[in-house]
């Protein structure tokens, strides 16, 4: 028998139990999005590949050909794709996670489930996209006859960091957007600037050494650098302070995002 106590200040206790109870819903939401995502599109699932492919081509032309950025002995398209994948995962799923509550307002105000389930499921479905495009990266690496180094063993760490950062920011955005719809207009700007402030189209080694630490305050810098290092094993190795900052930063974002989401979650249905 389950006993439930609802009080103004102690919903907390059941929360973890509820998250576990609603784990299937988490998968259902992701499954729904997967089914719906490419309905009534012509090329369907191919969009998963077209998006990073186009971005890769554009960035290769702009930074590699026109900008003549150093590639450190790596084919430039490969260099760019290694940055594009985590960046697109971050920007798209952060945006979708952010919209998740407002877009499903009727559900939020009519039925109970831990709202976290809905926001987090957006991360899951984009993770599927991420792995599909990751296969594309693998193929491209084969094409260039590029063999990864031992550093690839560290890839899971950076994957975790990437997911953590995305979930953390997504939680912040989702919770804030319930109260302030302005966020919807801010997010695209952040994504646009972020593309240039993160080493997506270039290597972070081109940033002057004295600014390197400041530059690394953006946790995506450490994450994207990490990806590149794991997959391509860039010559100069990894910039460790950047990774350290990324780990601390991601933890902070994740914990604070979770805290803020939980704090405001109880009023979502009232103000959405």
């Amino acid at each position, binding site marked *: 028998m389950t006993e439930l106590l609802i009080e103004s200040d102690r919903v907390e206790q059941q929360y973890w139990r509820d998250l576990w109870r609603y784990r299937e819903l988490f998968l259902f939401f992701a499954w*729904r999005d997967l089914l719906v995502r490419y309905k009534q599109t012509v090329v369907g699932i191919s969009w998963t590949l077209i998006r990073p492919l186009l971005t890769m081509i554009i960035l290769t032309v702009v930074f590699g050909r026109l900008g003549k950025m150093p590639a450190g002995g790596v084919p430039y398209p490969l260099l760019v794709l290694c940055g594009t994948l985590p960046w697109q995962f971050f920007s798209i799923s952060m945006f979708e996670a952010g919209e998740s509550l407002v877009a499903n307002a009727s*559900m939020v105000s009519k039925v109970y489930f831990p709202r976290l389930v809905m926001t987090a499921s957006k991360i899951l479905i984009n993770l599927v996209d991420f792995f599909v495009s990751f296969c594309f990266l693998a193929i491209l690496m084969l094409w260039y006859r590029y063999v990864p180094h031992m550093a690839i063993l560290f890839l899971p760490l950076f994957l975790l960091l990437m997911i953590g950062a995305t979930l953390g920011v997504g939680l912040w955005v989702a919770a804030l957007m319930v109260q302030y719809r302005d966020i919807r207009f801010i997010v695209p700007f952040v994504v646009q600037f972020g593309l240039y402030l993160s080493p997506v189209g270039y290597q972070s080694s081109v940033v002057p050494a004295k600014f390197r630490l400041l530059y690394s305050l953006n946790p995506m810098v450490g994450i994207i650098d990490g990806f590149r290092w794991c997959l391509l094993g860039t010559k100069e190795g990894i910039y460790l302070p950047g990774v350290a900052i990324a780990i601390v930063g991601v933890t902070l974002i994740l914990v604070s995002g979770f805290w803020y989401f939980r704090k405001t979650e109880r009023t979502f249905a009232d103000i959405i």
Partner: protein
Amino acid sequence: MPNHSFANSAKREAAITIENLGKKYHIGQQRAKDDGMRHVIESAVRTPLAWFRARRQERLKQVDFWALRGVSLEIKRGDVVGIIGGNGAGKSTLLKLLSRITVPTEGRIRIDGRVASLLEVGTGFHPELTGRENIFLNGAILGMSRSEILRKFDQIVEFAEIDEFLDTPVKRYSSGMYVRLAFAVAAHLDPEILIVDEVLAVGDASFQKKCLAQMGNIAGEGRTVVFVSHNVEAVRTLCQRVIWIKDGLLHRDGEAEEVIGDYFDNIIIEKVQAVTNRDFGLILEDVVLRNEHGEECREFKPGDDLTVEIHYDAQKSLERPYIILSISGNNGGCFAANMLLDGRRPEVLSGRGKLSCRFRSIPLYPQKYAVRICIRDGNGSDNIIPYQDAAYFSVACDLADYGYQGQFVGRAATSTPVVVPYEWHLPDGTIAPMSLEAASRVVTTR
């Protein structure tokens, strides 16, 4: 069931215990939201001190509104409890608190058992997904596990009567099919405690009946049901106990018959609010009752003519709508004027206007009655204004004026209300005609 050593036997019996429950809303919150973040940030950056001061004042200015306050009650396992009350009385707030959608400001609720709550049918239905997919999705949203849905899948499909459309996206469904499917999923929830809002106000009459029957089954199996409705009829059919919430407070709590009777007596003086359907651009502004002299009136005599006048504002022109007016007493529907049957519908409703229906010589006993209205679109399938109470009136008279001589004539107040003219043919040859028509009224000079 684990043995709670701290709980005495009476406590274990309770499925839901509510103590001093209250929910407060800030009315000012709504306005502050419109300012948007730009304003908040800008003013905070420019003059931090003034901003803090302003925020404090704003907080003082905010009007606190208690949607619900000081509600304490206990619902025993197996009880079927109806909650009634006017618009904005706090019924829905209570349901939202019970179903954990929002958090109480004060007080506590203790719920013992697996709860399912249903505030809307078809929550989370996705138009692009097929019926089959939506059954799984909606079931999961309502708290069913995948295996549970699989087990009940065939029953759900059968109940919804949609088997040949199972793999059609629900956006291609008629609204009737949509509602049937949505309710079918909900009806197969298997909770110990079921919390239901006005979900029966949808679908056609026969399906509504089926839903009510299903709810009755759930209740019959000894499960606890909390049922909120405007439809007093449904509440009466299903519930033994009724709770009447008024102005956020628990007003009455008791036997269904008693509370509903009181509720009807009270509601008659209330004015029903305007109803709007934004999609169709139709506002039902007012429904006025008039007597045969054209005067606004709320109390009639048996045999009087009753004119129901509907004031509408059709912002988009509405072609050939169906309007249904029915008169229902506290024992159920009495009679109706139904364009679905008579087909005498208006060509078009556009702009502000009115139309009326005159019921001739209402053959009703002295009781309280509701005028219920429903407006459907030109296809007759979509509810523009779903069935709802639009006005109330009472019939009052001394039945002796109509030749009633019975010793128990007072029971007319709870009797079947409609009387067609009849006559007794007695063995001694006496013929006793009875009628509530105006002509049969003995005009007494008082």
